[in-house]
C-alpha cells in the first residue's frame, strides 16, 4: 500500500503546500516533481551538459549514454524496446506525428475512428490531416457512463476504417476503457490501432505488448517527469513505414542537393537537438514510479475514487451533478462535476455556478486547486449538455483527507452561490 505521508516528503513543493494549506488536484493536467527528478535534471546540467550523438569527447559521450539509457529505461516501463520509443514534447506531439504519418499512407475516402471522449489531441490532428487528404473521421458516440470495448468499436467500423485511435483513460470522465482484446481484433482486420496513453501510463500498469497496439502516445510531465517530455511508442514495422515528420539535424543519415536518407528509427523522428535533460528526468520519474509499483498506484487511486463516489452518495447534495462511470473498477482518480440546481427554468443566473467560479472559490476558500473548462474535450463536454465542468484529479500524493477538503469546498460554494 502507498504511504502518502512518506511520498510527500519526496516532493519539495509540498513544503509550500503545507505552509499555505494547498491541496493540488489538477494532476490530469500535470503532476508535481519529486526531488530525484529535479536532481537528475540539475545533475545533468552541473556535470554532463553537452549535445548528444555528436561529440566524441568525454562529456559528449556521457550525455549520449545518459540519454540512451533513459530511452531504454522508459521503454522497459511500458514493455517496449528502446528502438520503439520516439522522444517528443508531449502526447499531443506524439499524436500529431501519428496522424501525419498514418494518414500519408491512407487513400482517399479511408476512415479513422475515434470516440467522443477523446482529448482534442486525438481529434484535431486527424481533422487537420483529413482536410488535407480527404479522409473521413468518424466518432463512437459513447454515453457519459459508457465504457468503450470491442463490441462498441466493432459496431462503428466500416469497410473503409484504416485506423482506430482511442484513449485508454478519459481525462474528463475518468473512464478506463476496455481495450484488452481490441488490438488482436483490429490486427485480424488489418486496421491500425493507436492508443492515447496520456492518462493511463502514469496511473496503472500499461504494457504495449498486451495492448497489441501499433502506436501509443504518452506524456512525461503527467507522470512526475519534466515539462516538454513525452513519448511515442511504435512497432518497428509501423515506425519504418511512416515517413519522417520533421526534417533537420539528428534525423538524417545523408543529405544531397536533390534528396536525403533518413536515420534509422527512432532518430528518424527526432529532428534537432532533443530535450536531453527532459529524457533523463523522465527516466528518473519512471524509476520513482517503479519503486512505488504501478499496481499499488492504481489500487490507491481506486480507493480514493471509491471513497469520493461513496461520499457523493452519502451527502446526496441537491445541486451537485457529476459525470463518468460509477464503478471504481473502471474509473480513474478523476472527479468531474458541476454545481447547479437540477431545475428547469429560464432564469440565467442563480441556479448554476460557473466552473470558473467553482475553481476560483475552491482555491480562495479551501486552497483546493481544481481545473475548470472543457478540459480539451469539447465534444464530450457538449455531449454532457454543458459548456464547462470542474475537475478534481488525484495522484500518489493525494489521500482521503484531500477528498474531504474537496467536498468541504463544494458544500461551501453551493451555500454561497446557489439561490434557494
Amino acid at each position, binding site marked *: 500500500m502507498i504511504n502518502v505521508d512518506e511520498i510527500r516528503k519526496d516532493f519539495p513543493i509540498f513544503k509550500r503546500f503545507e505552509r499555505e494549506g494547498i491541496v493540488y488536484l489538477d494532476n490530469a493536467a500535470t503532476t508535481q516533481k519529486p526531488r530525484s527528478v529535479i536532481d537528475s535534471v540539475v545533475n545533468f546540467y552541473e556535470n554532463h551538459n553537452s549535445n548528444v550523438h555528436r561529440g566524441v569527447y568525454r562529456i559528449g559521450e556521457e550525455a549520449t549514454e545518459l540519454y540512451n539509457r533513459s530511452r531504454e529505461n522508459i521503454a522497459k516501463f511500458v514493455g517496449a524496446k528502446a528502438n520503439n520509443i520516439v522522444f517528443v514534447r508531449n502526447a499531443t506531439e506524439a499524436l500529431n506525428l501519428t496522424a501525419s504519418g498514418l494518414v500519408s499512407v491512407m487513400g482517399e475516402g479511408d476512415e479513422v475512428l475515434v470516440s467522443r471522449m477523446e482529448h482534442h489531441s486525438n481529434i484535431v490532428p486527424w481533422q487537420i490531416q483529413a482536410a488535407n487528404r480527404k479522409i473521413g473521421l468518424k466518432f463512437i458516440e459513447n454515453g457519459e457512463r459508457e465504457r468503450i470495448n470491442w463490441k462498441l468499436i466493432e459496431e462503428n467500423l466500416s469497410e473503409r476504417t484504416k485506423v482506430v485511435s482511442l484513449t485508454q483513460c478519459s481525462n474528463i470522465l475518468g473512464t478506463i476503457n476496455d481495450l484488452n482484446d481490441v488490438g488482436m481484433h483490429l490486427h485480424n482486420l488489418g486496421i491500425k490501432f493507436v492508443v492515447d496513453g496520456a492518462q493511463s501510463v502514469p496511473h496503472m500498469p500499461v504494457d504495449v505488448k498486451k495492448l497489441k497496439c501499433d502506436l501509443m502516445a504518452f506524456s512525461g510531465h503527467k507522470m512526475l517527469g519534466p515539462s516538454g517530455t513525452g513519448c511515442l511508442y511504435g512497432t518497428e514495422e509501423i515506425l519504418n513505414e511512416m515517413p519522417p515528420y520533421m526534417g533537420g539535424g539528428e534525423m538524417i543519415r545523408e543529405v544531397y542537393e536533390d534528396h536525403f536518407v533518413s536515420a534509422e528509427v527512432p532518430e528518424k523522428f527526432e529532428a534537432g537537438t532533443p530535450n536531453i535533460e527532459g529524457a533523463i528526468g523522465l527516466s528518473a520519474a519512471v524509476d520513482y514510479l517503479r519503486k512505488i509499483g504501478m499496481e499499488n498506484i492504481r489500487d490507491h487511486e481506486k480507493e480514493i475514487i471509491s471513497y469520493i463516489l461513496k461520499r457523493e452518495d452519502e451527502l446526496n447534495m441537491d445541486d451537485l451533478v457529476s459525470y463518468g462511470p460509477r464503478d471504481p473498477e473502471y474509473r480513474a482518480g478523476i472527479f468531474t462535476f458541476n454545481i447547479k440546481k437540477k431545475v428547469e427554468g429560464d432564469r*440565467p443566473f442563480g441556479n448554476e455556478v460557473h466552473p470558473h467560479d467553482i475553481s476560483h472559490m475552491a482555491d480562495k476558500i479551501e486552497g483546493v486547486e481544481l481545473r475548470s473548462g472543457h478540459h480539451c474535450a469539447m465534444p464530450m463536454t457538449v455531449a454532457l449538455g454543458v459548456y464547462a465542468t470542474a475537475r478534481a484529479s488525484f495522484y500518489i500524493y493525494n489521500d482521503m483527507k484531500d477528498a474531504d477538503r474537496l467536498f468541504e469546498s463544494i458544500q461551501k460554494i453551493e451555500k454561497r452561490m446557489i439561490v434557494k
Partner: protein
Amino acid sequence: MTDDIVYSAIIDEHYQEPRNFGKIENPDEHIMETNPTCGDTIAMYVRIGEGRIKEIKYVAKGCSISVASASILSENVEGKPIENVLGMTKEDILGNLGLKLGPAREKCALLSYDALIKMIKDFKSRNPQ
C-alpha cells in the same frame, strides 16, 4: 481593491441581477464573442445615434466575473459618446470591477469590453464621417 471574488459585493450584485440583460431587435451592431478557455459566450447588441451609445444589451452565459463585468460595462457606457468608449482602457474596466485578477480571469472580465470595442469599430468603418 480586493483580490477575492468570494466577498465582492459588486460582483455578487451584478451577477445575481445583471443590468441591461437581453436582446435589442434590429440593433445597429451585434456580435457574438467567446472565451476559448472556458467557453463563456456573450451576444451583445447596440444602437448608436449622434455618435453616442443609445442603447446596449447583451445575453451572457458565463462566470460571475464575465457576467458582472458586462453588466457594469453596460451601465457605464450607455449614453456615452463612442469616442469616449474607444478611449477606455483595459485598466479602466478592471478598475471598475474593483478586483485584482490573474491573467486567466482577466479574460473573463474583458470579454464584454472586447465585444463592444469590436462593434464600435465595425460601426465606424461602415459609417465613415
